[in-house]
């Protein structure tokens, strides 16, 4: 029973890790850069949604839309002012710069939103439904479904639509894409926006189950990054599978060994995976050239 319940929790959390990690995949594949502060983008989604829905009392759907819009703008800001200035001169300082931007955002939120964690009420997280003897909130079942649906959606958009194919073209060969009239710079901006919006969705989805606070995303973002890396950051499905696996391993470790071992086991596995497979579970090595 305990096992089943932790697997459900694990799949839910795991799909959210996967969703954030998909954000890492999207930006990395077009620009070889990531927003290291994905966790704070996720927090932003949850906080804005809470503020509009609870503090201002707007309808939830509208609040969600506003929150995702804010996330999209934040993605644009990160790309334009924190990543591009460094990436365009070939420096990898974007890594620390995005960390710094995340710290700034978290603290701005801390002083405007407040310190005390709050919980976003959700109609889907009030009455547990019984599966056998196990009580689960409908939201807990919805989260992995939404996560996987978004992953499928991404897959379909990138395979079937003109814009999606253009994005894939940029990933596979930026110069050739330029020669077809595709604006690679816009593609990169677009990738950062999609990436933060995904993080925002994850934040809103988990907000009713956890507390909404300025530091809610920090550890989550780091775990999502671990997921992206062990999944092999260039493989979208690899990233999603790694996310689910990570979530399940984490939940099982917690319920079997106790919560203190969670990070030792999961992060230990991350090191072991990378030591054995430097390109991640589903990644491919790039060919060296001189």
């Amino acid at each position, binding site marked *: 029973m305990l096992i089943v319940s932790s697997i459900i929790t694990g799949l839910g959390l795991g799909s959210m890790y996967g969703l954030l990690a998909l954000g890492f995949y999207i930006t*990395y594949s077009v620009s070889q850069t*990531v927003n*290291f502060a994905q966790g704070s983008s996720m927090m932003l989604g949850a906080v804005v949604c809470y503020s509009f829905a609870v503090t201002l009392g707007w309808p939830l759907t509208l609040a969600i839309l506003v929150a995702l819009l804010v996330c999209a703008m934040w993605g644009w800001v990160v790309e334009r002012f*924190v990543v591009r*200035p*460094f990436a365009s001169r070939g*420096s*990898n*300082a974007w*890594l*620390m*710069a995005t*960390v*710094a*931007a*995340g*710290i*700034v955002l*978290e*603290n*701005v939120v801390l*002083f405007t939103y407040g310190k005390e964690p709050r919980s976003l009420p959700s109609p889907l997280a009030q009455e547990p439904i019984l599966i056998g003897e196990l009580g689960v909130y409908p939201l807990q079942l919805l989260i992995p479904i939404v996560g996987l649906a978004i992953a499928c959606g991404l897959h379909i958009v990138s395979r079937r639509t*003109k814009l999606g*194919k*253009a994005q*894939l*073209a940029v990933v*596979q*060969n930026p*110069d*050739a*894409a*330029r*020669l*077809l*009239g*595709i*604006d*690679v710079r816009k593609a990169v901006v677009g990738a950062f926006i999609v990436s933060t919006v995904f993080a925002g969705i994850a934040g809103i989805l988990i907000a009713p189950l956890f507390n909404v606070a300025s530091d809610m995303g920090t550890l989550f973002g*780091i775990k999502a*990054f*671990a997921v992206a*890396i062990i999944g092999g*950051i260039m493989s979208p499905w690899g990233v999603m599978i790694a996310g689910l696996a990570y979530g399940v391993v984490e939940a099982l470790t917690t319920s079997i060994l106790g919560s*203190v*071992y*969670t*990070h*030792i086991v999961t*992060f*230990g596995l*991350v*090191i*072991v995976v*990378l*030591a054995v497979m*430097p390109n991640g579970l589903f990644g491919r090595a790039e*060919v*060296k050239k*001189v």
Partner: protein
Amino acid sequence: MIAAKFIVSLLPGVAALGYASIANSYELYILATVGFYAMVGVGLNVLLGLTGQVSLGHVGFYAIGAYAVAILTTNAGVDFWPALLFAIALTGAVGVLLSIPALRVTGPYLAMITIAFAFIVEHGAVEWRELTGGANGMMNIPPVSLAGAEFSELATVYLIIALTGLTLFLYWRFADSAWGLAMRAVRDSEVAGQSLGLNPVMIRATAFGLSAMAAGLAGGLFSPITAFVSPSSFSFFQSILFLLVVIIGGSGTVFGPLLGAVIVVLLPEFLSDFAEYRLLFFGGLLLVVMWLAPAGIVGAISSWFKEDNPDATQPSDADAQDIEAFLNRKDAATTLTVKDLGISFGGVQAVKNFDIAAVPEKITSIIGPNGAGKTTALNMIGGFYKPGSGTIRLGSVELAGKPSHMVSRAGVSRTYQTTQLFGDLTVLENLLVALGQGHLGGVRSALTHVRNNAEACAQCHKLLAFVGYKGGAQTLAKHLAHVDKRLVEIARALATQPRVLLLDEPAAGLSSQDTELLIPLLRKIAKAGVIVILVEHDMGLVMKVSDHIVVLDAGMPIAEGKPAAIRKNNKVREAYLGTGEVIDRARKKALGKIDSIMLDAINLGAGYGAAPVLQDVNVSVGKGEFVAVLGANGAGKSTLMRALSGLHRPIEGKVLFIGEEIATWHAHRVARGGLVLVPEGRQVFPELSVVDNIGLGAYCRDDFNDGVEIEEMLNRFPALHRRKGSRAGLLSGGEQQMLAIARGLVARPKVIMLDEPSLGLAPALIEDLFSVLAELRDEGRTILLVDQMAALALSVADRGYVLESGHIVHEGSADGLKNDKTVEQAYLGGGS
């Protein structure tokens, strides 16, 4: 001057000691904290400043140091000093251990491993209760003591200040030692480091170990002064603060970590009213410093004060003779014998049955058209690629399959197509790194500035004189002019005292005068007893300088012999210029009068960095015309295409497209305007299907009728029709070329440009391809073709230009050019 610098360097230490003597207990603690941050910062500086790697997990080492001392002195009753030494050794060992997975990865992957490490240490400290006291931590850690006498708080802080000073001093000695240089060299160019005998794995592992030891030292001192350790002191966020120390202060500078530590620790004290805004402030500060002063505060300040002595020493000619003796190793009378060498990439045989026997005092050249496998062959000899088959023997020593740093130590040195100097090292340092042949020495060597080795420096100056380098020895390599980069790279390769020197296109990007300078130099090197192997496109140089030539085509040797024989060899001419007999593809209906110019390049100049690749190029294409630009490899054809299509911004001149100036447009805008390039090497999107690839060609068109038009393209290229559903990456070279052309055509370009479409295709496929081009021409399309296969290109073109070394040397009607000797000379050298 030196004395003044010395005194200034001591000032912070004196000030700290002075302040400590009057400080209260809290202030002493703050002072100690500055010391800890500075020590960890110095450690991170070894990693970030010297090897260019980021660690987000240094708090883990700091924690291990702190807990090791705490546990040993409290639970095991060990004295402080042995405990501290143990803590340092332990962190060093953990650092090296962690470097094993970390070394195989870089960038975000490395960041992840270090983050994971920090979390494991933090949570391990919580969980391992018997040892660490769990979340409550350990209390009553005894203070520092010596021979039974306990240190007062003040004395401990004095000790911390002294040790901080010592760490800074050690870093200063280390950064410019043979080890420090090697670390910076591997950071700037790993491949070049390997080809000088440096072992990057060992070097990075050492950096990791040393870096961890500094953090361990700081942690070991932290325990006794606070008398209390708990996991909460070692949160992940602490790692970010440590990195902040180095980045704000200035990575790669001696005093950067100290200044960074002062800022990070003291600022919150001064701003105590705003204490809760501390992190906001740090985040903002980090961003501002990274935007405005990427080298950190100390880095920015020292660049203002940089003394302008570009040249302390000018190499003199007098010593050049000594170098011949240096290069002439008595044991050098041995041969490089390569037999039956082969390699394949993803099923494609890049090189096959390659034999070469190169002897000392001779220059052996490997030539062949683009894509023939020359550089691949060189990479196998140099150990960069592991050959699939065959042997490489230097004398009796087998080199095949050895890693490149071992190949280098066996006596094989090389230069690169695009120079691989260590950009942030000076010219002198570039050579000094090489002089050690990969042997870095022990502790003494690690603490001795290489530049103080007068003998080594003199040797480097002589080498620079020998190659004819006239610039400053203290100039940073990245600031050199292109020709100087080439010369310094050759000097650096010679500094390893090689038996074999591999030169990969040393003349690429050089002007003809500069190329002339290479001829006596290469002869001189060979004469000194070195086996010289040259891969080069500049046929003028190859024909003049070579003693023996091996010609490769499509990975296979097709001829070898002396230059004169090679020039006359029919197989070689065919490989370069295409077959003599060409199908007649002349227009059925003569081209009418041209009523408008579609594309006009006027006095176009383009290049990469300092070297101009194109100069004063004038090319025009009339409406409905088929124009070919011919030229050997390396003549600048692809650069011309890149400049016209907007992929590479020209330095001078204009590009007019239907009367509009487009030289400053981005590539995507040029393509939208209707000037479409089918790029060299096909460049299809490998993971997308054939149909999707074609469809993307019409990305900018709103009136694209995909069903009908894609079908039309598939019918035009029947080979694609059969494979329309498969991924483009699985297509053969010929099919991919057809696909790339189809993709270009659906854009409905006003002018279509084709870059080397025949490259790497089998002869039969090339014939098919050119028939397609003739069809397109007869439909009235405007086409600009660049191709190495002169005879073929002229069979379809109306007019042609001949490009040689970046200049248009000839132009005329296709018929006129067919029988023109200057075309052949542009390819195979000779003539005037």
